[in-house]
């Protein structure tokens, strides 16, 4: 009985008092939330660069500015020095705290534009640059811009003009080639779903400059899953698998064994190539030149073989 009365009378006052800490905490949190944005934008930079794409890392090293990097993405594996640098996430999931702690003056990333995380870095006073990857020409302009932003505009201009010249030279060499004389190439970027590159990509430009023709140029845009039977029907003469080693061999074997592929010319004639470094073909950086040369050499062999049989 007595206990009952206690439990009805006193607790009312006590519970009111008990709310005080909660209210104070809420007010403190609110204050912090209001003040934080202005406080955190005043982070002073330490002058380094963080590169969140393998291609921009390669470009910075090619510009002779690798020493300025204080962080790279988890996928950066070239040049070997890059592997020793601190890993700071990637484009989609940058390690925001590590980047803020490194206080770089510049964060660079390839293509695709800003995302929510990158905007957050910008709000913290860090400059963010997205290097374009939509065409060979824009990739070259990106080298120039990156050189300028990173403090060596001259190096940027030199790298860009060297890159442009190589592509221009190869394109000129194969420009006169008739469409029908260009070997049809299917570039498999992924096997499930079967994926490739469309006519609006720099990879398509690279295939053309190397003297070939992208079998999927008009089937779709960007990186996409093409209609499988359309690829089969067009009967590509060569297939490039953009994975290497055991994985590339397995992918090549699997593709040849898929229903309908046994009769495709590239499979019949044994032209499934899984030994060109995919990073030379798919990374919008300075090493595209090597991909261009490797593919050109292969396609020249195909042309020579064709002419041999024609005669």
């Amino acid at each position: 009985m007595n206990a009952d009365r206690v439990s009805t009378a006193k607790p009312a006052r006590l519970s009111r008092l008990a709310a005080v800490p909660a209210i104070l905490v809420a007010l403190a949190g609110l204050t912090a939330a209001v003040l934080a944005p202005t406080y955190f934008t005043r982070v002073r930079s330490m002058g380094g660069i963080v590169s969140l794409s393998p291609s921009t890392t390669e470009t910075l090293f090619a510009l002779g500015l690798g020493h300025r990097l204080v962080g790279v993405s988890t996928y950066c594996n070239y040049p070997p020095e890059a592997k020793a640098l601190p890993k700071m996430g990637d484009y989609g999931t940058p390690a925001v705290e590590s980047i803020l702690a490194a206080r770089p003056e510049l964060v660079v990333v390839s293509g695709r534009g800003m995302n929510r995380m990158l905007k957050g870095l910008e709000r913290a006073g860090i400059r963010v640059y997205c290097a374009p990857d939509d065409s060979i020409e824009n990739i070259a302009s990106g080298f120039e811009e990156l050189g300028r932003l990173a403090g060596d505009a001259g190096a940027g201009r030199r790298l860009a003009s060297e890159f442009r010249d190589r592509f221009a030279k190869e394109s000129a060499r194969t420009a006169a080639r008739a469409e029908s004389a260009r070997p049809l190439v299917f570039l498999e970027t992924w096997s499930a779903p079967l994926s490739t590159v469309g006519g609006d990509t720099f990879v398509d430009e690279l295939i053309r400059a190397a003297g070939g023709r992208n079998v999927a140029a008009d089937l779709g845009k960007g990186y996409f899953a093409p209609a499988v039977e359309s690829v089969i029907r067009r009967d590509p003469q060569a297939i490039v698998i953009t994975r290497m080693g055991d994985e590339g061999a397995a992918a090549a074997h699997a593709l040849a064994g898929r229903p309908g592929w046994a009769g495709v010319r590239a499979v019949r004639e044994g032209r499934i190539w899984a030994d060109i470094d995919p990073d030379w073909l798919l990374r919008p950086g300075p090493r595209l030149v090597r991909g261009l040369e490797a593919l050109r050499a292969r396609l020249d062999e195909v042309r020579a073989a064709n002419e041999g049989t024609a005669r």
Partner: protein
Amino acid sequence: MRRRADLFLALAPLGLLAVAAAGVMLGPERLSPGELFGEAGRNILENRVPRVLLAAAVGASLSVAGVLFQAILRNPLADPYVLGASSGAGLGAALAILALLGTWAVAGAAFAGAMAATFVVYRLALVGGRIPRMTLLLSGVVVGYLLGGALFFTVNLNRGRLNDVMWWLMGSLQATEPGLVTAVWVCMVLGTAGAWLFSRDLDLLSLGEEQAEHLGLSPERAKTVFFGLGSLLTGAAVAASGLIGFVGLVVPHLVRLIIGPGHRRLVPCSALAGAIFLVIVEFVSRTALPGEEIPVGVVTAFAGGPFFLWLLRRQRKVFWG
């Protein structure tokens, strides 16, 4: 109802043949029959036929599995994935994909994952030799969440392969391995025949367990058998084509609306209807966008959803009983 069911049973095989023929004859590449069956179309034909066959077997498997799970759980929302098969298969497949294993190994891992997950759910739900429906449903959902978490954790550790896993989760009928198509057909025929042979028990089970027991059925044993059959059908379908939603949920309801709830007809009619539906879906996923292919799961939802809603509104009375 019975006459309608017989008519359905007589006409559906013809319908299946018709859509399968259309699926083989038509595609993004337009070829005349002469070309298609001649030398020029051999590669294309070789690519299309396994896809159509796979679509039919997967559609039938998922629909019959849906019928089984709806009968066991007496829950209209039950589908082949409700008892954890999808996330179990997903985790198995993702691990195999991340380990860079080949098509057969991925399929085997998915099948093993589906069977293992449903077995765990079954064991968890077993209370003193009985399987209360609610416990079964809840343990299915919770095991599904757990495995789903493990799946996304695994993928997150290896984001470079996200693409592969995503595509698998959205379902694909690109038949990459002819042997797998055969395997799915064998499982589908076995599972459907099993469900059909015990269709009387399915009827009794859907009346409710007490009534079933009064009528001489051992509900626990029947549930175990149907559970096994349903898992076999789901596991095989998922292993060959990833997670294709919607079919197993909606096709059985649709067929029930047309021919009534008797399982002796519902099982074969659902199998046929599921096969027809997925053959059409496969065709659409291959042809809707010029030059490209769309994930099958997207098409099942877009094509099946509105149609089902329309039917639901029209036949509200029948549906809500």
